[in-house]
Every structure is written in C-alpha cells, then in structure tokens.
C-alpha cells in the first residue's frame, strides 16, 4: 500500500524513527478499540510495531477508579520493533485515574493529551488527587495538551439525534482522530472499519466517523499542536502481513498442525484468563474440522482432550497456571499412556489466583516438575505473538511424532500483545507424518520406533488392534499392566530417554555473537523482544555480548554445551526469581547471574541494558 498523504498540513512536519503511545482511560472509554484501530492503520502504512494491552481484572470496575484504568500501548517505527516500548513518548489520558496510573511510566518531557472535561473534583478524588494536576504543577516536566474532548465531541455531533450517552461514547474516536493527525495517519482504514462494524446502524456510523474527523480537524486547525510527525515505512521482509496476537497465533498454529497431520483438532478447555481467547478463536473455525469442548472444569478439559487423542484427534487443552495445577494428574496419565497431547499454559502472575491479567514466566518449574513420579514432558516456549504460530505447530508436531504430551508456554504479554506476522504460504508448510501400526502382525502397544522411542498408536475402530492402556505401569513392549521392579526401572528410563532425545528432531537455537567471550545472555519465552532490543543496542555500541534464546526448554538443545562453558558470565533474564537459572545450574554445573523482575510486566530493555553495563564494567 502506498503511504497516503495527509492533506492540509501546513504546520511543521518532523520525521521520527520511533514512537511509543499509550492510550489510557476508564475501562468503559473504549481504549482497547482505539489502540487496535491505531495499530491497524499503523500496520497498513508500513510501520513495524508491537502492542501491549493492559486492562483491569475487574470486568466493570467502578468508573473513574485507579483499578478501572484500561490502557493500550503501541510502539511503532520505521525500523525493527521488538517490544511495545519501555516508556511511552505520548500518553493519551481520558481521565485523572488514567493519568495517575500511567504517569510514572512516561518519558521525561513526554507528551500528554488530556481530556480536561473529566478532570472534575469527583474524578480527581477517585483517582486520589488532592488538587488538580493540571493546575498544581505536577505535570510541569511534560508537554501538556489539554483538550476538552468530551465537550468537543458533543459539539461535533450536535446535529445528530442521539442521546448524550451515545454521543459521549464516541469521544475515543475524537482522541483517535487527533493522534492520526499528529502522526500523519490516514483515516480511511478506520472509516471502513466503522462502516462494517456498525453495518445497518447508520446513525452510529455517522456519529463515530464524525467524531474521528472532528478530532483530526481539531488537531490540524487549532493552535495547540504546532508539529505533526512522520514515521517512514519500515523495511520489513517483503510479503503479505497481518497483525496477530499470541493467542490467535496459537490457534492458527494448532489448526495448521491438525490439517498437516490429517487429524481433527479437538480442544478441551475451561475458560481462564488470559487463555480463553484461544478457545474463542478455535470455536469459530468448525469448518476446519475443529471441535471445541467447553468442559465443566480444567480437569475435564484435559481429560476430554486425552480421550480425543486416544480416538485419533490432535488433542489440545489450553489454560493458565492455576489450570495446570488442576490438570497435572491427567498430564501424568498422558505421560504413562504416551498419547499425543498439547497442553498450552498462558502464564500469568501467581501463585494462586495471583494477577490474572498480568504477565509472568513463573510456571517453568511447574512445567518441568509439577507432577508425581518421574514424569518427563517436553516443554517449548513461544518468543512473541507471531512466533506463537510456529511454536504451536512445533509443539503439535513433536506430540504427534514422538507420542508424548507437550507443554507449550506462552504468557499474558504475548498472548494479548500483537505484532505483524509474515503470513506463510500454507503449501510450503511441511506435512506432519505419523507412523501407523501394521495391520498384519500382532499389535504390541508399547513396541517402539527405534529412533524416536515413540510407540505406534492403534486407533479405536481399527479391526484386530484392540488393546487397553491406562495409568498403571506398563510392561515394556506388550503394554500389559506390570508391577515388576526391573520393568518399572526400565520404563522410567525409557520415558526419560524418549523426551531427552527430542532435541535431535528439532532445530538448535541460534547463537547470536561469538561462541566465547565475557558475557552470554541466555533467555526463553516472551523476554525475546526486550532482550533483542538490548542486544541490538549493545552491538550498535560495539560491545561484545553473545545471546542464545531457547525455544525448547525440555530437553535443552544439543548445541548449548558447545559454548555455554566458554563465557565468564552467563546472564539469565527472567520474569521470575530465577527458574531457568536453577535448571541451567543443575544441568551444566555452572554459575549464572539472574536479572529478575516480577512486576507482572514485560522486562524493560533499558533496565536490562543498565544491568549489562554493570556486569561488563565488572568484567573489565
């Protein structure tokens, strides 16, 4: 698409490489919608981007309160973007609470666009302001643009026969219009969206479109904004793109794996934040042979998925940490019965109910060890929203080809965050081939493929291959129940070996930088973006660091021990208290340094850079 010229801009246009905006307001103010519209338009004109929604755990939190604030952050740029941005350059604050919550994050001298109409005493009190921050100097370190957004929206819609409540609901489009002018975005994509969204409701189409245009014209014509900004197109890899959230990526990856393996996809799931969107997405796609089963509880979700796997489907269950706690007995049964099953954990803040809408990486040890007995399960982690597609496909492939449950770890940050996804050509995605048992010889349920140690699973309905499996220990080869001591020892080792050798059938992670030196950064999961940004920064400054981002955590990759011993320091940044560190120390008998922030938020590149600086200075 060619970049649309925004007409009538006589004011100064300044070119920028990179901007981070945070739209924040009350949860009823439509900030998520505003953010996603800004995102689509920004993607459409060719900027790279990354987004992070941040909404309250309460569904309808009391209006105007701090815990009712809903935010949407987007970083966009003419060069690569890997995170939603550490601290916004611009804050659009629709009420005092939104200002209060987001101000500490804002860049020094950052821009604040404020809806002054909402800065009245009641809202100020609800936000915990004793005096009006617009007047008491609180904001003196920032560039303030006070706009009576509510009033201006009402004015713009004065000739429409709609009640005030509906008119006021259009104020987010007014704010969006202003930001479109400020950052030289065309309005047509949002106008089209409004048309299809409110199809049949002409008055709402008119109201929202008018509000959008009014905001744009207001910014263009008034004195308060003197400058608008241009962010040139990013040089992304050529191809067809769309924006994708991590949860959509997982849903698509799973559907693709099912199609490519010739299996039906069966999802057994119980609603839980922040994983429910996978259930929502998959339940739309029944014409792709996707069966979704909203179970009575977490246990039933995985149990039905395992039953479906026995019957020949690609069985999947999706949840978050508390759900995994409930599913763990069934995960053990999946280990014992050696059936293919994908268990998706969209991690959130814990323990217990914890922080349902916030992000964390603190379920890694649960994934490794959270079951009774010697119960090895392969673990794969997605690195970002778009990577969720690939990680889900890979998890399903290994589950099917190695007859094992696989845990796929994502987290709240990448589950809801978006980034552009280079849409793959479906024909170029390889088939997933699954070995079938022979029909003309005696079927032995626990006879193994010598290479993968996977067993050949006979599907119910196949004549002559009738067999029983279950949670009791199996006799090697026959799969009969066995309490024999030596057999148990053997089976425990076979199951460990089967999972341990999966690293032969997957790609090694890339090592960025030299295979020896002062500092190796080792990481996994959603910290990929912030760390990539930090590593690029360090490289730009000519500092030597190496970096390896793990995709498979269990088993650890084959290539890791070729270089992990060659560094003075191994730094492991995680959103937990050092869970991968524990595993690396145990596996490689080396010391590691942690960088651990457990605030329910993604890691910040700047903080990480500061830490690395200290480490590098110490090593000099």
């Amino acid at each position: 698409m060619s970049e649309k010229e925004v007409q009538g801009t006589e004011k100064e246009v300044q070119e920028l490489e990179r901007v981070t905006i945070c739209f924040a307001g009350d949860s009823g103010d439509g900030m998520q919608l505003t953010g996603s519209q800004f995102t689509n338009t920004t993607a459409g004109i060719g900027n790279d981007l990354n987004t992070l929604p941040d909404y309250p755990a309460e569904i309808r939190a009391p209006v105007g309160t701090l815990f009712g604030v809903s935010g949407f952050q987007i970083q966009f740029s003419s060069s690569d973007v890997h995170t939603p941005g550490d601290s916004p350059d611009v804050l659009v604050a629709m009420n005092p609470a939104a200002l209060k919550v987001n101000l500490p994050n804002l860049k020094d001298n950052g821009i604040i666009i404020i809806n002054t109409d909402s800065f009245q005493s009641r809202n100020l009190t609800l936000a915990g302001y004793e005096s009006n921050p617009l007047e008491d100097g609180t904001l003196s370190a920032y560039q303030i643009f006070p706009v009576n957004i509510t009033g201006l929206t009402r004015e713009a819609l004065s000739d429409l026969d709609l009640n005030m409540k509906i008119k006021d609901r259009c104020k987010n489009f007014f704010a969006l219009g202003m930001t479109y002018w400020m950052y030289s975005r065309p309005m047509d994509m949002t106008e089209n969206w409004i048309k299809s969204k409110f199809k049949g409701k002409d008055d709402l189409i008119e109201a929202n479109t008018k509000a959008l245009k009014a905001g744009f014209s207001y910014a263009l014509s008034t004195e308060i904004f003197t400058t608008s900004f241009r962010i040139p197109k990013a040089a992304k890899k050529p191809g067809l793109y769309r924006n994708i959230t991590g949860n959509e990526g997982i849903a698509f990856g799973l559907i693709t794996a099912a199609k490519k393996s010739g299996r039906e996809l069966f999802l057994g799931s119980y609603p839980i934040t922040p994983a429910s969107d996978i259930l929502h997405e998959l339940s739309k796609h029944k014409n792709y042979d996707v069966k979704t089963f909203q179970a009575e509880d977490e246990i039933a979700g995985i149990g039905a998925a395992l039953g479906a796997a026995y019957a020949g489907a690609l069985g999947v269950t999706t949840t978050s940490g508390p759900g995994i706690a409930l599913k763990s007995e069934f995960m053990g049964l999946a280990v014992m019965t050696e059936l293919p099953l994908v268990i998706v954990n969209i991690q959130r803040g814990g323990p217990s109910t914890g922080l349902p809408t916030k992000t964390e990486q603190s379920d890694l040890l649960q994934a490794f060890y959270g079951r009774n007995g010697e119960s090895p399960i392969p673990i794969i982690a997605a690195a970002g929203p778009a990577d969720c597609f690939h990680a889900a496909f890979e998890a399903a492939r290994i589950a099917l080809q190695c007859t094992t449950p696989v845990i796929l770890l994502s987290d709240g940050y990448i589950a809801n965050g978006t980034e552009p996804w280079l849409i793959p050509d479906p024909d170029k995605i390889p088939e997933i081939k699954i070995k079938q048992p022979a029909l003309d010889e005696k079927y032995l349920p626990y006879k193994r493929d010598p290479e993968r140690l996977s067993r050949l699973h006979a599907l119910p309905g196949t004549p002559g291959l009738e067999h029983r499996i279950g949670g009791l220990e199996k006799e090697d080869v026959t799969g009969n129940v066995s309490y024999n001591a030596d057999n148990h020892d053997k089976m425990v080792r076979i199951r460990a070996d089967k999972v341990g050798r999966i690293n032969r059938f997957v790609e090694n992670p890339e090592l960025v930088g030299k295979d020896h030196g002062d500092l190796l950064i080792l990481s996994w999961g959603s910290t990929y973006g912030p760390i990539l940004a930090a590593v690029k920064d360090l490289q730009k400054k000519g500092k030597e660091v190496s970096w390896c981002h793990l995709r498979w955590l269990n088993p650890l990759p084959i290539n890791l021990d070729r270089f992990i011993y060659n560094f003075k320091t191994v730094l492991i940044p995680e959103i937990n208290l050092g869970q991968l560190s524990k595993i690396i120390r145990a596996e490689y008998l080396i010391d590691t340094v942690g960088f651990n922030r457990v605030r329910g938020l993604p890691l910040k590149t700047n903080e990480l850079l500061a830490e690395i600086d200290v480490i590098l200075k110490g090593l000099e």
Partner: protein
Amino acid sequence: MEPIQLTKDDFTSNQETRWCPGCGDYSILAQMKKVLPTLGIPRENFVFVSGIGCSSRFPYYLETYGIHGIHGRAPVIASGVKLANPNLKVFVITGDGDGLSIGGNHLIHLFRRNIDITIVLFNNQIYGLTKGQYSPTSEKGKITKSSPYGSLESPFNPVQMALASGASFVARSIDRDPKHLEDTLARAAKHKGTAFVEVYQNCNIFNDGAFLSLTEPKEKKKHLLKMEHGKPFIYGENDELMLTWTGKNFKVVNKDLNENGHEILTHDENGSGPAMEFMLASLSLDAQLPTPIGIFRAVERDTYDDMMAAQMNATKKKKGEGDLKTLFTGGYTWTND
C-alpha cells in the same frame, strides 16, 4: 453388509481377572459379555473407559479398545473419545466412590450434555480397593476403618442424581439377578444418549450382604420390586402386593383388595414426569417399602454428539471447507514490497 457374528468369547481378553472370589463384579462382566455380541456393532468399535477402583479394572478383561483412566475422570475421557469419533460405542465403567465422590462433577455434566455414552456404576456402598472406608452411598452411621464410631454422612441416591441432572436413560439392576442385569444392560447399551445403570454389587470382602434383602431367595420377593413398562407395580412372595398412590405418598396394598381404593399406578418409563420418577427412586431409601429395579426413565432427546456434528456441517455449508489460506488472511492484511 455381512451381519456381525460375534460371541462372548470374542470379547474375552487374555488378561486374568483379578477380583476377589465371589465378588459381584464377575456377574456384571459375564452379563456384559453376553450383551456385547447382540448389539450388531463390530468389536473394534467398542471402547470401555474406567476410572479407579475395583470396578475400573473392567476394561482389562474385555477384548475391546479401552482406557483405564484416573480416579473419577472416566466420563471426561469417554466424552473426548466419543466426540472425536462418533462411530465408536463408548462405555464408562465406574463405582460409587469413583463416580459419585471424586468424579461426581463429571458425571452430572455428562448427564446434562447427553453424549451418547453408556455408564455402568457398580454400587457396593464401600471403598473396596483402598480396603474398606465408607463411600458416598454408605448408609449413615456405618462403621468402617475410617468411621469407627459411625459415619456422619447421608448417602447419595445415584438414581435421583441422574434423574435430576437430566440423564435420558436411568435404570437400576443387581448383580445377583443375571437375567435382569443382562436385559437392563442391553436396553442401556441400545439407548441413544447418556444411559445410566446403577448396579447393586456385593463386595463380599468389605461390605458383604449390603443388598442381602434384595438377593436372598427367601427375602428378595418381599423387598424387590421389578418395574415393568405399562404394568402395575406388583411384587411379594406370591405377587400379592401392589404399590399404590394415596395422592400424597405410596401405599402397599394387597392387590386383590385395595380396600381404600388408592390409585393403581402403571409404570411409564418414557417420562412419567420428574415427580413420579423421583418418588420411585426415593423408595430405595425406605426400609418399609420395596426397592425398585428396572428402568426409571428412557426418553429421547438430542445428543451432544449429534448436535456437534450438525453444527460442524452447517458451518461447512455456510463457510465452505476451511482452507489455511483463508484462515491466515482473514481480517486486515497488507503487503510489504
């Protein structure tokens, strides 16, 4: 198509049965083996799913597909099996501990959904495998290892639970009446939808004689009421007793006298209404009145599996067979060149 010729031996697996000698489970297994060949279903299409407990060993002894699952969870595994492949004939084998205690939640939801699955619940009113603790169907005051001074809990009535949860087929039978058990299992297996059979099963090791009054030749005629569709409720040593309705409750009368002219009831298994079904089910808790066995309810209603298939077909009709390209490019896309 060739008619399927199977015998009970075709369903006997090579695994040695390991229940205690004299256990009621043997009878249930024997009747099941008689029923399976009569259903006209190829052997490879049977799947038996169980949980944990003595009853749950059942699948190992049948030459069919089977899963010995985890405690209480057979209904959910079975649901997954059936929904993934609706051509399969799926059974759940469970017990009073497995199905009503640890797995109670799953059972009621299966009833509610009406997935085409046949459930057989072996009720021996005790935990056998863990060596004799009171169960959710044990009578109040029961002395067991875990209740040396008597249990404090009132028992569940499994039939009432199934009826209340919307099961479309609810029946009860007893291990010591092989013919009745065989007929009941056959009816249940042929029912389309979730079918539930409670089987009174004697655990001769930890709860021997729990159903003695219903099985001893001398006693049973006095206490056991076999319900038959379209017939009055008649029982007794010489079939002389009849269950009647006073307008408020049941009354047993001599069938030839019925002096007070109470209403003579005829059994309607196809939906006598929740009130009558419940009242009949409640009789099992009443020492003064007979204990009914047979079919409490057999009604047709849409199954979850059929509705799921219909929804999938309708979606395919409307949107076409899904292809990945359409999936990936749905929503807003753009090209970088």
